[in-house]
């Protein structure tokens, strides 16, 4: 072992500097004193110290990875450059690397790990709810588990598809060799990883009692663990905003010749629609969390009713971010669905323009609906009809996506591969999610369903049933391209069927249980709901088990079995499948020229069994 290699910019340095930075910040925070923050001494709750510790720790970690080097060199007047460590080898996955494909892989594994943690929390929640009154965890731990589950999922899954798959495939799909800002691309990933670790450290500071919504004034009252939540979400917001910026800039500027807007693959359109929301909504979240942090440290009164502030302000600001956020979660799934259906129905996408309109429409409308989260809160009661209308209007563009999916299946030649199964399951799950959403959008119905397990089951149908199913669809569809190794089909199908059945067996009953009067986030519940909850818990454990099937299959297929796939195992006509698996570092030997529609199925000579892409031509000679 060459110990010299441990020196320099790598993960080890990053951890060391991160930990050192943490304690430097912690020490620094304790140097502040003043009359308004005198209570620190009494309670040991030094929020300033913890904020500074996280901040300096973050800077230390990123510097250790090498992120500080470029800004400092620019400060000294060195000219700009694009790439860092775009080499081969396994080491590039563990450090700052600006190859968009490496970042995609990093996202896949990194986000996967945190989703696994979030999923384990869900298992603990269901374990607690096996009994209506008996407590396995105490009340505080239960709330922390609930908060960790919700926050981890909502924070990490925002980049769940864009992170791994858009980073990897978006440049390829538009015929580019890189993202517009490769260094920012790498930064978004590492910010997210640091954020995830910071969120988990909340356990050491007493956890946080607010769930993922972090409502004021409870967030002001909470212990230091709340600071972890604040820093986590602010970093996730920053990561999201930069990711969105990078995606839009890439699509606008990096498209290959011939890749007109009307020829973008539909997945790229869904990424655009999502990115607009990410770019613009996340800053609202960051500002809001800044206000919360000021309330907790400098004793300002943004959300404190006694000091002239208002908890309503937090609810408004949070949901101005929060509703776009849930479409940030939903839209990429729609893109995956419509990207996969043509391949396995062997038909062009039906209603391309309608699908694009639907996605952009959802993106726009999602800004106008936020107060439907506040129908019974007493805010602007006279505006409820407007928010009811605007919320229900979202079902129109969502309906576009459905009709396009159904139209694509029309007279297709459907192959029931694992990704196709997940895509079809998306349709079923999202249908139920959408229909249950109509109850929540209707004010009289919402009176009972609001804040109950019904709404919880509703958004699990859209997020887990929609996003996570499309996430798995994308994994089964694209990971063979990313690694060059097949994922075992038989175990994939076992995974699909156990997951699909267990998922519906978990959240279907939860819709009913919620309607029957079970509030969210409560550690106890009424005795008459015991049977239903037991059923749900057991189903949830099967759901967790299905994830183990996946993890086992994934690790076995990708690490041990390693059955190589060819360039185009699905016989797809999209451009990413015309490249070798895995894609070479430089993507294209020569930048291609696009000639037509991205889904040229059935356009051929009538025999129609060709898999060759007639629309992509490489220019005759390399660019001078």
């Amino acid at each position, binding site marked *: 072992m060459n110990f010299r290699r441990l020196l320099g910019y790598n993960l080890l340095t990053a951890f060391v500097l991160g930990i050192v930075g943490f304690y430097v910040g912690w020490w620094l925070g304790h140097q502040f004193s003043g009359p308004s923050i005198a209570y620190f001494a009494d309670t040991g709750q030094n929020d300033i110290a913890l904020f500074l510790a996280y901040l300096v720790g973050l800077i230390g970690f990123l510097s250790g990875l090498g992120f500080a080097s470029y800004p400092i060199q620019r400060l000294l007047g060195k000219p700009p450059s694009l790439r860092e460590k775009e080499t081969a080898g396994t080491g590039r996955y563990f450090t700052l690397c600006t190859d968009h494909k490496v970042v995609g892989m990093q996202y896949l594994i990194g986000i996967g790990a945190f989703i696994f943690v979030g999923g384990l929390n869900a298992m603990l929640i269901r374990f607690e709810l096996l009994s209506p009154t008996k407590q396995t965890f105490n009340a505080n731990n239960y709330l922390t588990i609930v908060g960790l589950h919700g926050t981890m999922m909502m924070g990490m899954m925002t980049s769940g598809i864009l992170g791994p798959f858009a980073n990897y495939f978006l440049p390829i799909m538009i015929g580019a060799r890189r993202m517009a800002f490769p260094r920012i691309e790498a930064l978004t990933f590492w910010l997210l990883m640091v954020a995830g670790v910071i969120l988990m450290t909340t356990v050491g500071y007493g956890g946080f009692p607010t769930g993922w919504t972090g*409502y004021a004034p409870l967030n*002001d009252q*909470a212990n230091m663990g709340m600071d972890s939540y604040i820093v986590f979400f602010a970093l996730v917001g920053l990561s999201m905003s930069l990711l969105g910026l990078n995606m839009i800039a890439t699509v606008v500027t990096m498209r290959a010749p011939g890749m007109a807007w009307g020829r973008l693959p539909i997945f790229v359109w869904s990424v655009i629609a999502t990115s607009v929301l990410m770019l613009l909504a996340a800053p609202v979240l960051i500002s809001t969390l800044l206000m919360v942090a000021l309330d907790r440290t400098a004793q300002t009164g943004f959300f404190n009713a006694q000091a002239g502030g208002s908890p309503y302000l937090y609810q408004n600001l949070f949901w101005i971010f929060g509703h776009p956020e849930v479409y940030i979660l939903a839209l990429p799934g729609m893109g995956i669905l419509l990207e996969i259906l043509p391949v396995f129905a062997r038909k062009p996408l039906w209603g391309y323009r309608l699908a694009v309109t639907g996605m952009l429409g959802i993106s726009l409308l999602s800004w106008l609906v936020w107060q439907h989260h506040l129908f019974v809160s007493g805010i602007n*009661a006279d505006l409820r009809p407007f928010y*009811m209308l605007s919320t229900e209007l979202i079902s129109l563009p969502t*309906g576009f996506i459905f009709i396009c999916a159904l139209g694509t299946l029309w007279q297709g030649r459907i192959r029931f591969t694992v990704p196709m199964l997940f895509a079809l399951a998306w349709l079923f799950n999202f249908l139920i999610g959408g229909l249950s959403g109509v109850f929540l959008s209707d004010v009289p119905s919402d009176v009972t369903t609001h804040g109950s397990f019904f709404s919880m089951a509703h958004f699990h149908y859209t997020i887990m049933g929609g996003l996570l199913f499309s996430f798995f669809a994308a994994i089964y569809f694209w990971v063979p391209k990313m690694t060059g190794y097949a994922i075992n089909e038989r175990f994939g199908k076992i995974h699909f069927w156990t997951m699909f059945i267990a998922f519906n067996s978990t959240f279907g009953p939860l819709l009913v249980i919620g309607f029957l009067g079970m509030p969210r986030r409560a550690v*106890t519940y009424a005795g008459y709901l015991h049977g239903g909850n037991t059923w749900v818990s057991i189903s949830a454990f099967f759901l967790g088990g299905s994830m183990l099937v996946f993890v086992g299959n994934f690790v076995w297929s990708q690490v041990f079995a390693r059955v190589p796939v060819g360039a185009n195992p699905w016989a797809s006509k999209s451009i990413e499948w015309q490249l070798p698996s895995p894609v070479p570092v430089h993507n294209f030997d020569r930048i291609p020229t696009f000639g037509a529609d991205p889904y040229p199925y059935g356009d051929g000579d009538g025999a129609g069994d060709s*898999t060759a892409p007639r629309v992509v031509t490489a220019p005759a000679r390399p660019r001078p």
Partner: protein
Amino acid sequence: MRLQGHAGRIAALTVVGTAIVLPLVIFVLGPNMPPGHRTTGASSQVNDNTVLLVVMTPFTVFILAYLAYAIFAFRAAAGEELRDGPPIRGHMPSQIAWLVVTSAAVLFLAIFGTAELFASNGAGGGEGPKPIAKPSGPVLPVQVIGQQWEFTFRYPTYGGVETAELVLPVNRQIEFHVTSLDVIHSFWAYELGVKADANPGVDNVAYVKATKTGDFQIRCAELCGLWHGYMFDTGHVVDAAQFDTWIAGERKQFTPVEKYLPRYSVTYSPDPQVRAG
């Protein structure tokens, strides 16, 4: 009309499926939808739920029938997996039809929901300090005060008496005034079909009229900290005579402590917040 081709068969499946499901929804599922028929607000919610289900049914049946049909009829034949399907890139009439039908449904739902909201005096939901959907005629105001982690109740027309349990007379229009002393809670009386957030410094009004006597559950429906899960209670709807007896007894108990409590007010400003839990 002769049904032929894929479209005809899917249409037939949809029509038949709707014809089977719709009566079940209207006559079996609908009337038994939560939260039941014990108050005016709850009844109007049940109506709403039924109407929503009725509107959704044809769409749901169509999509599921289409999916099921597609899975069986459009599966690739053995050996033809890689044959391309027909290059259909859209069909304007069906796109327009879909847009028109879904728009009509959405507009109907929004108008119906609004009408129902006003007709039912807010259907038991919190409407803020100045409710716009409110009943005419006399009301019995009842204040609900949320604090970590219990609800207490005050009856301003009975001398502001404060009670630990909620008792309501049947067949009288109740006007809940929901407020909080600390963080946000949500007053959820499930069987009454009432839910209103309790915000510090805010008077959140909700209307309901119980039409049957009996017990109902009260739960906090907004995460409010450590013992949120234990913030529940049982309330009672009783007839007028029982209510009068009960409230008289409460007032008798209340008189000695009256001077220690703040006067009745729509909101209260407690001591500056302290960190708890």
